[in-house]
């Protein structure tokens, strides 16, 4: 079966005053219907930029996107704005980090949802309004008919994100891109939103890309994981396998910096020292090399000079010069 979304060698570059930012540098991944892929990375790792590029929401004047984004057999890179407006909101929907700023303060919630349905389904005003109320009801907003007439500022943070999800769902999209959907929310509300996303995936068979920097969210909500660093995929695979036995030093670092409920509560968390490289002029070698504790395992200055390719084996990929069997048997540090 062909995957629903197939991204190949995606590169996104945009010009700023100081030069050219290489935000995404050859990203490839596949996503199948009904699955959730978590894309994980630090701020500036290119995870949001890559997803905005899927929908063509980047600033076209400043940004150059190359590579291939095939969605259900259609090529999206280089597609006209006209073609993209037909896909956006209908077959691919997106929800954003901060629902307060992402929803229009000037229009009521019901109208914002109905608008999308009218646009894509050509429904009448009345039918679209009814549909908006159903969508709000589906995402668990009480008294949906009355709340549809409220404005976003009259909602709580969790309710706003629910409304945002209702807006994304109203046309029953095949793919939902959720860009840090729980970052701006309380922990208790986070879990509710993740549950909601999972139930939607199971009910409609929607594929979900979950962009996050929270590994706890990943473990809870996703089946597959893709770890990004400096605009590249450094490790991918099934969530369980990757989190249990990470192969890339960066993934190990991320895990070591995340608190766990199992094991020693007093164990110290370790930060990944240093900062990500400037994307203005990416280094020729492994971008993680300056922060890596394992470069001693590699002969010569391979890490500094040669970019490690992403090698895939048995459904798992890792972009590191250290061959993984040897890497995983080595003691930490």
């Amino acid at each position, binding site marked *: 079966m062909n995957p629903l979304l197939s991204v190949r060698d995606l590169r996104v570059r945009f010009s700023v005053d100081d030069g050219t930012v290489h935000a995404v540098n050859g990203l490839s991944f596949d996503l199948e219907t009904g699955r959730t892929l978590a894309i994980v990375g630090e701020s500036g790792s290119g995870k949001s930029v890559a997803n905005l590029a899927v929908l063509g*929401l980047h600033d076209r004047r400043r940004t150059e996107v190359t590579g291939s984004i095939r969605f259900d057999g259609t090529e999206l890179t280089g597609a006209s704005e006209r073609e993209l407006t037909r896909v*956006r*909101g209908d077959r691919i929907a997106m929800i*954003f980090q901060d629902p307060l700023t*992402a929803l229009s303060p*000037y229009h009521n919630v019901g109208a914002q949802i109905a608008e999308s349905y009218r*646009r894509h389904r050509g429904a009448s005003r009345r039918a679209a309004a009814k549909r908006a109320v159903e969508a709000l009801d589906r995402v668990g907003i009480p008294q949906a008919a009355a709340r549809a007439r409220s404005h976003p500022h009259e909602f709580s943070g969790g309710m706003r994100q629910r409304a945002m999800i209702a*807006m994304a769902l109203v046309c029953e999209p095949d793919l939902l891109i959720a860009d840090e959907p729980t970052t701006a929310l309380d922990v208790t509300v986070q879990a509710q939103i993740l549950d909601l996303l999972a139930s939607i995936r199971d009910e409609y068979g929607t594929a979900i890309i979950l962009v996050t920097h929270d590994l706890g969210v990943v473990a809870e909500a996703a089946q597959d994981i893709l770890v990004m660093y400096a605009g590249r995929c450094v490790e991918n695979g099934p969530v369980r396998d990757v989190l249990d036995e990470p192969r890339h030093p960066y993934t190990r670092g991320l895990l070591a910096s995340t608190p766990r409920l199992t094991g020693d509560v007093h164990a110290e968390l370790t930060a990944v020292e240093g900062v990500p490289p400037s994307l203005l002029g990416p280094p020729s070698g492994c971008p993680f090399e300056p922060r890596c504790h394992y470069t001693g395992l590699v002969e010569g200055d391979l890490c500094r000079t040669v970019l490690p390719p992403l090698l895939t084996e048995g459904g798992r990929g890792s972009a590191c010069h250290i061959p993984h069997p040897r890497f995983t048997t080595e003691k930490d540090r």
Partner: protein
Amino acid sequence: MFAFLARRISSGVLILVTIIVVTFGLFYALPRDPARLFCGKICTPEMLAAARRNLGLDEALLTQLWQYLSGLVAGRDIGDVHCAAPCLGYSYITQRPVLDVLFERFPVTLSLAAGSSVIFLVVGGGAGLLAARFRGTWVDKGATSFSLAGSAMQVYFVGVIALYLLVDQSQLMSRPGWTSPLDDLAAWFGGLLLPWIILSIIFTATYTRFTRSTMVETLGEDFVRTARAKGMPGRTVFFKYAARGTAAPVITLFGIDAAVLLSGAVITETVFNLPGIGKLAVDSVTNADLPMLMGVTLVAATAMIVANIVVDACYALIDPRVRTS
């Protein structure tokens, strides 16, 4: 909405009364003697004393203030003249009630302000939107350059040149002047066209720049990106979402400008010899016509208060967040 208006109007009245009291104190603390001005060129000490008594200037300052305030409500007699309510005082120079003169002058200023506002809102706002829509292209650069050049076009300079070239030399435009629109609509329009255009140049420049920058900022907002992510076509995103976010700041700016314009465009009225409030203010200052100057001050204060209330009401219509708070 009704409670909102009632609250704002009552606080507006309170502000006006405060302004009256302060201006009153300020003017009567000045060394010019109103009775001396009223008395005229040939003035004996007896005539001066009679004038002072007639005008009530021999009373204590507080009594005079009380007379002024009660005159607003009930009318009063000043000397042998009756000044009907609402009485804003009596001008010693023009020998007429202040209110009559204001009523005569205000239509001129109102016409000037309204006409030029239409021009700079449409041209400036439109150019700003176009520049934002085609940011970085020649449209944007053209609008920005024109706006920069326009900011330097001071009325006392451009106005005089335009008068000379377009009216005196070539007769391309009719001579500026005031005709009541009730008497002759075409003459009213012809007489104001050049002042409208000249006065609106600087404002057009400001509004182009302001609309452009606000629009560019709004286009970068998250909710505009959401509208795009929903598959809304560019026109909908631009007008329904971004332009709406731009309207509120532009209206706020316009509220202040409208109030200033309604208080009289002093230079424009002087250059084109239009008998408006601005010209009246200049003449009153020159002649030390204190009651008239006080009337002009009140017109300016009222314009500012009314403009503020209208702006706030518009704000509530545009932005539902204002309605609830």
